[in-house]
């Protein structure tokens, strides 16, 4: 069961390679252009959307719903094909649809620029210079399109398994090379990667159905799936949609559990080991309740020292009986990099507490989804970055096999790396209490801020007449610079102290 996705800015190059490869594999080749046709037939204003992207960013915002509809439509279609068996899909940024599916082979094709130029000249009857200008503009528009759809640069190598330069390679050779690569154990489906694909497919089915149904199509929903469970979150201002979601998804194939959580935003909790009885769970719950946020949990399994540098022996799956997912540590670092989940058997296996934590979050009405990922930390950044739904990422217990001192350092480095690469605030579990919750330190801060604000207030009102004379009276006109500086200093100071104190009071009242 091979799933190959080929991305390229050159339609001819990717089409020829995809068709050649599909012939060799004996499977179907599907193009972005076919998908566009189907999407347009389904009533998605794709032409408008593309024009808006070409014109400028404001129209993107205006057509945000059309974008979500298109993505839901295309994800459903491509994941459906991938579930059926061998398939080769080619498009501009098609690799982004299968991020997190390890056995989906993601190929970037760099076309021969001269051949591309010549072909454009012939096709459009343009001279060398005009054809060059045309292609430059086209590449720019495609870059904007990829940025608009997925928030990534079109040819960022980190999202591909292999990059092929066709300058010195024929289509035949390239497809033969891809065929041999496909035999590698890394691109063979495993129970974990198939389960991940199934979750992707289930979420895509649900998302597309919710977008198309008039009862739910108007709402801003976030849909994820894990195993046979679908999780949707909806905005508080759109709470009436919650009544409709179960009805819309009632006969969805492959789903037997639905969780709908009202959430203003999402908190992502990344850890190797989850423990609902640990203080961090309570703290995250506390923050989630205050923010009206859903908590998404992601188990991150780093490669162990023993596996580093070992020759590739293929992914070794250790099946367990956990409902949400356990992901094995890959044998080589390079073979990793996706969200995995495992078999669908119910039970309590060695899953790092993911399943039991998910159940507790569901009981507490804040569940936002669960997933597992193995590999290096930069792979984690790639997965988080491609999704901008989070307003906070909390790094919990990771690298648990290391000694405490190494664990602290690695955790700090991981949080630092995430901070550099994603726009969402990232904090460690230890920092959570200090930044977002109310403890002794916050109480001291509150008292200091309140006292400072009261003193400033009393000084101004006790000596109001001399102060006003100093600020505006003609007798102090020569001192106006000092008076102006006094206003410039006193006002922000009071705002800082009183604003800080009032913010802490709201924090104490769990209303912030």
């Amino acid at each position, binding site marked *: 069961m091979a799933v190959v996705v080929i991305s390229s800015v050159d339609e001819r190059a990717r089409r020829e390679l995809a068709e050649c490869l599909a012939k060799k594999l004996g499977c179907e080749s599907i193009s972005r252009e076919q998908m566009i046709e189907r999407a347009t037939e389904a009533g998605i204003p794709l032409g408008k959307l593309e024009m808006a992207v070409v014109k400028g960013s404001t129209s993107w915002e205006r057509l945000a719903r059309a974008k979500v509809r298109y993505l839901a439509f295309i994800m459903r279609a491509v994941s459906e094909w991938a579930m059926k068996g061998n398939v080769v899909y080619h498009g501009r940024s098609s690799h982004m649809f299968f991020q997190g599916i390890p056995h989906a082979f993601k190929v970037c094709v760099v076309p021969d620029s001269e051949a591309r130029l010549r072909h454009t000249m012939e096709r459009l009857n343009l001279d060398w210079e005009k054809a060059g200008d045309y292609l430059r503009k086209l590449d720019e528009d495609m870059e904007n399109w990829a940025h608009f759809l997925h928030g990534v640069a079109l040819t960022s190598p980190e999202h591909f398994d292999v990059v092929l330069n066709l300058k010195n390679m024929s289509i035949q050779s390239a497809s033969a090379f891809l065929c041999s690569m496909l035999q590698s154990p890394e691109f063979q489906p495993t129970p974990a990667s198939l389960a991940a694909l199934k979750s992707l497919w289930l979420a895509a089915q649900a998302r597309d159905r919710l977008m198309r149904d008039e009862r739910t199509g108007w709402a801003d929903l976030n849909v994820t799936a894990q195993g046979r469970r679908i999780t949707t979150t909806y905005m508080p201002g759109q709470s009436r949609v919650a009544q409709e979601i179960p009805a819309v998804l009632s006969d969805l194939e492959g789903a037997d559990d639905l969780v*709908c959580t009202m959430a203003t935003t999402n908190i992502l909790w990344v850890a190797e080991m989850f423990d609902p009885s640990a203080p961090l769970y309570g703290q995250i719950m506390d923050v989630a309740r205050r923010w009206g946020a859903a908590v998404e949990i992601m188990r991150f399994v780093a490669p162990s020292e023993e596996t580093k540098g070992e020759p590739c022996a293929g992914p070794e799956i250790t099946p367990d009986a956990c409902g949400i997912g356990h992901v094995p540590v890959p044998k080589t670092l390079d073979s990793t990099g996706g969200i995995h989940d495992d078999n669908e058997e119910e039970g309590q296996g060695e899953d790092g507490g993911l399943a039991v934590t998910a159940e507790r979050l569901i009981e507490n009405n804040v569940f936002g989804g669960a997933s597992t990922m193995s590999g290096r930390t930069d792979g984690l950044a790639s997965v988080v970055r491609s999704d901008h739904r989070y307003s906070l990422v909390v790094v919990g217990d990771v690298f648990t096999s290391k000694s405490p001192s190494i664990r602290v350092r690695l955790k700090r480095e991981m949080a630092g790396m995430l901070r550099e690469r994603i726009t969402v605030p990232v904090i460690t579990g230890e920092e959570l209490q200090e930044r977002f919750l109310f403890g002794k330190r916050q109480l001291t801060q509150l008292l200091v801020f309140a006292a400072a604000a009261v003193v400033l207030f009393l000084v101004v009102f006790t000596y109001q007449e001399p102060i006003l004379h100093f600020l505006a009276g003609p007798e102090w006109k020569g001192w106006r610079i000092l008076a102006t500086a006094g206003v410039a200093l006193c006002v922000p100071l009071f705002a800082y102290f009183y604003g800080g104190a009032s913010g802490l009071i709201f924090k104490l009242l769990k209303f912030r």
Partner: protein
Amino acid sequence: MGGPIAELFINIHLSGAIQMVLLGFIGGVLSGFIGSGGAFFMTPGMMNLGVHGVVAVASNVTHKFGKAMIGSRTHTTMGNVDKRLAFFMLITAAAGIRLAVWIMSTLFQSGAGDHGGASGATADLYISIVFVAILTVVGLSMLKDVFGKENGQTGPSTKIVDFLRGLHLPPVIHLKVADARVSLWILLLGGLATGYMAGTIGVGGFIGVPAMIYVFGVPTAVAAGTELYLAMFMGAFGALNYAWEGYVDIRLVLLLYLGSLLGIHLGTYGVKVVSEKVIRLVTAVIILLCVMSRAIAIPMYLRQINVLAMDAGWDVYLNGASKALLFLSGIAGCSAILYYVIRAYLQRKKVHCSISESVGPERANYSLHAKGVAV
């Protein structure tokens, strides 16, 4: 208080102080809810409480400076601030503020009419006219936006952006965070208008934010964040200018803070739980009621500068009606927002449903069971 200070600043008694805190609170709630300052409510409110227009604007600008300083920090960490956009707008915004301060000082110092008018009536009239003109346009545009939007189009119109891009006015500045390209001349003009409005009525955001969205093509979140960032510098510049002229009443600033910094938390919470359409509708209605309130006071100022022949006894009624309408709009708006906040809090429950196979493998036999669900 005595001397020239008594003519400029009001005596603050307990009831006046409470009303000022209440003004700040309502302004804060509206500010947090609308995201574009509450000065459109606080400035006329202060004038209704007897504060000279120029002192009301000066104190409001100073109050906004400290508030924006705290608010912009949050937006900066969220990546909603385009500092390049703010920089270019600030160049001319400073000139706009300076122009506004100069006009206000000149009008204030030109004094009152000789028919029993309060000093500064000319400045008060000028502020009121600008206030009514600008906020009528803003309020009606918002109402049009609420009722005239096509289905499926949730974002702002791009007609002006597309037209200006078609003009190709070099040099063009690339705004990286906002991901937009705008002519420098358009940016400078926008900055000037924003600065002038901020210096005149203390509500530069009502010009700045729509200009960024509809004229520059900046995404809404970045426009709000950048406006707040800009407001910090414009507020600082305006505060320094007004303080230099001696118009800032620091007592009023502190009283406004007492209410506004509490109200802003509630308003911000309201944004998260109320749909965008309702936010725009509530905002538009409050703005238009504030406009009506200020319009009612205009004949009073016209009489004071000897333009309108009217019995001076009417002043108390006009001011009273203006004040009542303003507080009514503010309290009603606040109540509506608090109602949504409380309702959303009570509704914050979840649906946990199970789609289980009840009869057989056929899809038609699947049924839906709710497990202790509260929708």
